[in-house]
């Protein structure tokens, strides 16, 4: 009896676990697949760690989302994307972003010069690429 029930429950259990596992997201917050899917892993890691917390849907303030919203990136027209990539480079280089108050609260969100270099290099290259389109 016990053995029989065990055999029939096991595949069912596996199915339940399998379905549930599809809902676990490894990146939080989740971006629409289009937006950063093609961006380099190290760029995504930095953006996710420091920027998405304010600059995505349902996060940050109206002000931060109006300034830049990665969730809406695919809706941006080409010239707006180029403009935003330029702005990203600029605000990081000038240390205007992440905001000082934010870093005081969350010191681990501060970006090293190396990380700033990664993002600015990528942003410049990406903008140049878009300029060619």
């Amino acid at each position: 009896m016990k053995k029989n029930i065990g055999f029939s429950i096991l595949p069912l259990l596996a199915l339940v676990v399998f379905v549930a596992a599809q809902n676990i997201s490894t990146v939080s917050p989740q971006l629409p697949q289009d937006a950063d899917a093609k961006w380099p892993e190290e760029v995504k890691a930095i953006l996710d760690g420091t920027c998405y917390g304010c600059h995505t849907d349902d996060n940050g303030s109206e002000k931060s989302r109006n300034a830049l919203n990665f969730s809406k990136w695919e809706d941006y027209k080409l010239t707006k994307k180029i403009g935003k990539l330029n702005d990203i480079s600029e605000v990081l280089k000038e240390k205007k972003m992440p905001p000082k108050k934010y870093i005081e609260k969350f010191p681990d969100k501060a970006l090293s010069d190396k990380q700033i270099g990664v993002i600015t290099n990528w942003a410049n290259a990406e903008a140049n690429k878009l300029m060619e389109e």
Partner: protein
Amino acid sequence: MKNIGRIILYIFLGSFIFIQFFRVEKNQSEEVSQDDFFVQNPSMPEAMVSQLKTSCYDCHSNFTQYPWYASIAPFSWVIDQHIRNGKDELNLSEYGSFDNKKKISVLSKICEMISDSSMPPNNYLMLHSDAALDADDISAICDWSDGMALFIMRNR
């Protein structure tokens, strides 16, 4: 009671006169540089040039037109701070020196800021009603700036 009132008045007047000695420099350049936004964009319709100068130039260029009260402290300090912040964010007198990507960014942002009424700021509009942009102004400026951004993108 009367004495206290008089003392407070004298302190106030004394402070007021004292702070007038802390003057700030006026933001009024000698000449229009070649990099100026309107020099760089000679095709812009005159009416739009005029409107943008009225709405933007006081804080976003090297040429502020000061109202009479601007020489009086502490208003002079507040105005000076606004101008510094504005020029730091965007100085249209230097537009020509920006690289193409930055020009595109500026053009895109001009449309963005006026479309959601972030610019001109309300505290500026309170004292400069002629700087207000209506829906037609915004639409025209956005059309122009979007077109110019595309032009820059395609003609580098």
